[in-house]
């Protein structure tokens, strides 16, 4: 009797591990396959008998991507530079604007406060995929009015990334500002600290982690963004960001899978690193309140 019980239990445990292994393989294999393709010689890629593990490791594809010229007049480095400018720039800008707005929302009661927050929540829901046509037309016209090019270069993309990341960034930072006890600020004020000192010495150190988390979140979104960049930069290869440069490979007669996978790896690495930092916050940020933790 006892033996049957034990057998059932170990069978159950075996099933548990088998399921876990299956899920693990399903999740990891495509990621592995990117690397495996990027690291094997071309002859091993274009074959009818692919092997799971590369028989030979080579960095030729990475070298090609890093040194090679995919589109005349551009290089991996120009795509990387564009990506870095537009993502880091927009994240920094959005973080600054969001911090100001978050302080207003968390620390002051004012007439338009609720309206402002509800507007943020609703705007966040409007899909960029739907807005893309009017975004394009607007920036085209705005550029004409202001006499600057906003379409076909990074300016428009930059501004859109700032705006799109603002609502979630404001709401996330707001939570951190609210969590700072008001008494702390009042105590500092009693000690004679001015508004500026309170901001830098009391509020900022406590809000900084939230600012970082929100910024990383915005960074990942902007770094991966495809549709806006593709729509705005289609004809200006010099302004391509990394994600849309990847798409360009498919225009070629035969697709160089080794190079694509190498480029794809290079695109993925920064995201993976940042992801490690914010993974837990991503869950709590998105499901705010539904999990009582």
């Amino acid at each position: 009797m006892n033996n049957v019980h034990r057998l059932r239990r170990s069978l159950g445990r075996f099933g548990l591990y088998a399921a876990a292994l299956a899920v693990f393989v399903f999740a990891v294999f495509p990621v592995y396959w990117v690397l495996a393709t990027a690291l094997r010689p071309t002859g091993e890629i274009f074959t009818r008998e692919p092997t799971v593990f590369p028989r030979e490791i080579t960095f030729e594809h990475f070298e090609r991507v890093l040194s090679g010229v995919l589109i005349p007049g551009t290089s991996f480095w120009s795509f990387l530079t564009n990506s870095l400018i537009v993502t880091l720039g927009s994240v920094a800008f959005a973080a600054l604007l969001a911090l100001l707005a978050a302080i207003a929302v968390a620390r002051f009661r004012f007439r338009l406060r609720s309206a402002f927050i509800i507007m943020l929540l609703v705007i966040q829901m409007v899909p960029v995929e739907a807005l893309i046509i009017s975004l394009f037309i607007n920036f085209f016209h705005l550029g004409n009015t202001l006499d600057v090019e906003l379409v076909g270069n990074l300016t428009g993309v930059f501004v859109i990334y700032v705006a799109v990341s603002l609502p979630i960034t404001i709401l996330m930072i707001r939570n951190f500002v609210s969590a700072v006890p008001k008494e702390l600020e009042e105590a500092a004020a009693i000690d004679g600290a001015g508004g500026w000192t309170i901001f830098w010495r009391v509020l900022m150190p406590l809000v900084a982690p939230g600012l970082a988390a929100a910024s990383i979140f915005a960074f990942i979104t902007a770094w991966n963004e495809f549709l806006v960049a593709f729509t705005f930069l289609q004809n200006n290869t010099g302004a391509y960001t990394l994600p849309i440069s990847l798409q360009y490979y498919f225009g070629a007669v035969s697709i160089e899978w080794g190079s694509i996978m190498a480029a794809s790896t290079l695109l993925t690495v920064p995201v993976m690193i940042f992801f490690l930092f914010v993974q837990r916050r991503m869950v709590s940020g998105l499901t705010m309140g539904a999990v009582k933790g």
Partner: protein
Amino acid sequence: MTHTLERPTEPEVSPPGRRQGLSRRTRLGLVPYLLILPALVVLAVVLLWPIGQMLWISLHDYGLQQLRGQDAQWNGFGHYVYVLTDERFWSIFRNTIVVCLSMVALTMVLGTLVGILMHKLPTWASTVLGLGLMLAWATPVISAAIVYRWLFDTRYGLVNTLLNALPDWLVGSGWTDFNWFNSPSTLFPILIVTVVWQSFPFVAISVLAGLKSIPNELYEAARIDGAGAWRSFWSVTVPMLRPLFALLLVLQVIWDFRIFTQLFILGGGVTNRDIALIPTYIFQLGFASTPPNYGMGSAIAVIMTVLVLVISAYYLRTMIRQEEAR
């Protein structure tokens, strides 16, 4: 907290006889507005105004000439009438709904099962599995789409090779050079797998967090009352996690409704209307047809926005309620 206007905590006695243009109280009252002003301006110019424009354009005949400055002709609800009576739109609409719901259902079921699995595993195994899930989750959308296109590649894809190697009685024959990307019946399943692969980790990890938050006493009480594992799942776990499930469901529906990049890569652009979904159809009308039909594209965009807002009404209501409870 009540909804009455709270005064700023600073003392508001303005020293008599030193009146400046504005009283201290008025100036303090302006501070929050000044603080939200920059963000508000950016949002207004970049998002709010285009939302209005989208509505306006959808009611006009709007094409290249209008983009270049010609006045747009009022068209009333012409685009809407055309779209809503158009066979093609409805078939794209149907496909979008079917694909979206399949993605959501698979993501939710798989994610929940994996979340429960992780909860039952010992810590080390759960951590390792969690790291694996994170790799899939963190992969940029475009990279995910590209690797699935490579896995299912017609000539050298791993999947075709595998299907060829497996016995014919199991998987059928004819997999040599089988093209997965041309017809909806084979492309959409790959699209669904690609999207589910990236989104189930989020559900799994959220469900895991939810499971951890359920106090153990509830399960003990259920066991004392004679409930088995199945019963306590339905009577304890599900009710406790209902708000979480509702939220995840809404988020997934909204996200999967907006799928663009994956379809763009897998389908090789947006020109093939047979494999279009609403987001790619909008893009195609606006940027990949000659001449572009911004008016029609905007009408479909308005329909899409309304749908998304209706679907997210529950989410919005929850969030707004939380705001009011603050």
